């Protein structure tokens, strides 16, 4: 892969993404033209007042309601895509994602806990909000998983997965108990667990953007080392890759990415699993390509799903449900097609 391939691939992808964002911003209850979207955004970003020709209501809707939500969908999708690719490469398992180590389940537990406490009407300190607890739940889970797996000095993928599966099972049971406690108001938990980008704000974007940039840079920085890890620990070490340190760094970074994404959007399954998985079958397993592509594809997929539920469907379907409903059948088709081509199934 050289500089020219990178440019040839990522320039068009960036253009497609920008166009998709603009197109999505025109859709909704109020119709706005694409040029107007760009004018409104330019004015908003440069801090000027909106020009005279623009409907002030449209300007507010696009700039303060639609745009944060649209950008959040791209960033959350991208973060989930990258972290999925990294989890799969580290755990040497094409079916891994943030659930495998219990990270997303931990975030769900954190959020459910706050919701139940709110239902019981406890006066919570102002710092105790659903996003903060979701984030803490995800990061805390990684800490527990690493502690459990640390008996194995090499921190092998088998130890990590085993520890993750155990912790996730306990957390799932705990979430079940919290749902039981919530009784008639269990809908609040379920709604959060199915994910939604409806509440996304500009302050979310200010948090998500640097995280996505930082996470993508770290993941791309180590992408060649990740490739080499696929050939086994001993072989990787003999090529000068510090496997234990690499696993620690990348697990931490992808956990931060996942936890932050989840704290903004709630649980959105499928993107982290399916996006890198499908891409691997289209462009090969080279992480130098796979990781950045996972960002674009994840972002685009979630943007499309969110636009559908926001502006096209008659009622708003929870986004986590929609991604699985859209992605699932697509995955099935690909799966059957590969079998017919005589290739081994995934």
């Amino acid at each position, binding site marked *: *892969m*050289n500089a020219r391939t990178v440019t040839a691939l990522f320039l068009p992808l960036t253009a497609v993404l920008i166009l998709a964002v603009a197109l999505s911003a025109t859709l909704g209850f109020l119709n706005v033209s694409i040029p107007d979207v760009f004018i409104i955004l330019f004015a908003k970003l440069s801090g000027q007042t909106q020009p005279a020709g623009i409907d002030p209501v449209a300007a507010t809707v696009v700039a303060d309601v639609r745009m944060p939500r649209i950008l959040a969908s791209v960033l959350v999708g991208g973060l989930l895509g990258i972290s999925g690719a990294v989890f799969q*490469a580290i755990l*040497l*398992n*094409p079916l891994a994602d943030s659930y495998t180590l219990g990270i997303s389940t931990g975030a769900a537990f954190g959020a459910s806990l706050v919701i139940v406490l709110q239902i019981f009407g406890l006066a919570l300190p102002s710092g105790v909000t659903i996003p903060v607890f979701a984030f803490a739940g995800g990061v805390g889970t990684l800490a527990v998983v690493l502690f459990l797996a640390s008996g194995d000095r090499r921190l092998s993928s088998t130890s990590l997965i085993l520890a993750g599966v155990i912790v996730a099972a306990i957390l799932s049971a705990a979430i079940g108990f919290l749902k039981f406690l919530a009784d008639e108001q269990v809908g609040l938990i379920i709604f959060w667990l199915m994910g939604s980008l409806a509440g996304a704000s500009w302050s979310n974007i200010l948090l998500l953007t640097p995280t996505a940039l930082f996470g993508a840079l770290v993941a791309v*920085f180590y992408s*060649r*080392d990740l*490739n*080499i890890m*696929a*050939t*086994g620990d*001993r*072989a990787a*070490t*003999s*090529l*000068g*890759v*510090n496997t234990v340190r690499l696993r620690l760094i990348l697990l931490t970074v992808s956990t931060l990415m996942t936890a932050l994404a989840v704290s903004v959007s709630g649980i959105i399954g499928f993107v982290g699993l399916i996006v890198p998985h499908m891409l*691997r079958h289209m462009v*090969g*397993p*080279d992480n130098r390509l796979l990781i950045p592509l996972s960002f674009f594809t994840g972002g685009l997929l979630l943007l499309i799903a969110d636009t559908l539920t926001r502006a096209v469907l008659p009622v708003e379907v929870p986004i986590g449900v929609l991604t699985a409903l859209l992605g699932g059948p697509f995955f099935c088709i690909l799966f059957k097609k590969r079998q017919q081509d005589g290739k*081994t199934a995934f």
Partner: protein
Amino acid sequence: MARPLSEQHTDLLWSLAGVNFSYNGTPVLRDISLELRHGCCYGILGPNGSGKTTLLDLLGGLQAPQSGTIEFQGRPLHAWPKKQLARLLALVPQDFMVRFGFSVREVVEMGLHPHLHRFAAPNEAEQVLIDEALEVTGIAALASRPVTRLSGGEKQRVAVARALAQKPTVLLLDEATSNLDIHHSLEILHLIRERFDQQGMQVVAVMHDLNLAAFFCDQLIFLKEGQIVCQGPTNAVLTPENIETVYGVEAEVTANTFTNSRQVSFRLPVHP
């Protein structure tokens, strides 16, 4: 295969003194003291579980001993930066497994990792090096195939090609040809021996097959239960007595004119 003259090379590669290694409390290697020098093709032999692979891992810096010192080229092994060590030492592991469908060429290219800047693409000379490594190991025709779909023997040749692409000073082989049929084993060993004879690439090989070892190595190190039983030139230490001590089988060692090396036949000891 031409037997090299015992050359006057005496530059020291490794020196181990009082090395102990245990794995989760179980001693694997005990009080190993050893010197490995430039100009000899070394074979490490011994029964299963005698610590051969662990010794190779210690030489390669993949594991650190609990006590004792290991120096490589006069400098403590643990003080070497990992990347710098990877430019000098290449390992061909026993069961080379790749978890994702990288192409054969991509896997061989990974051998350049310690030589390449993080974001650099291989230059023309390095591309030639890859082509050559693919060619000599006989896998050039498989270059674009996913390595996950190769047979065990083909995978093993990919591992050898990758190690060659690493341009090492010393090649560490961990039963690298155990999975190969006799033709491919000989081909690979011959190829490595050629690099040793002509380009001075040093070799330390863990081996199972005594006859291949006799044919391939100038010096043998026999391990049993984590200790060195004997070491020395192949012709001096490959004796029925040593083989019986180490493996517990009766052996007959003959000078074979066909292979131009010592060859061993075995049988289980007959108990009265």
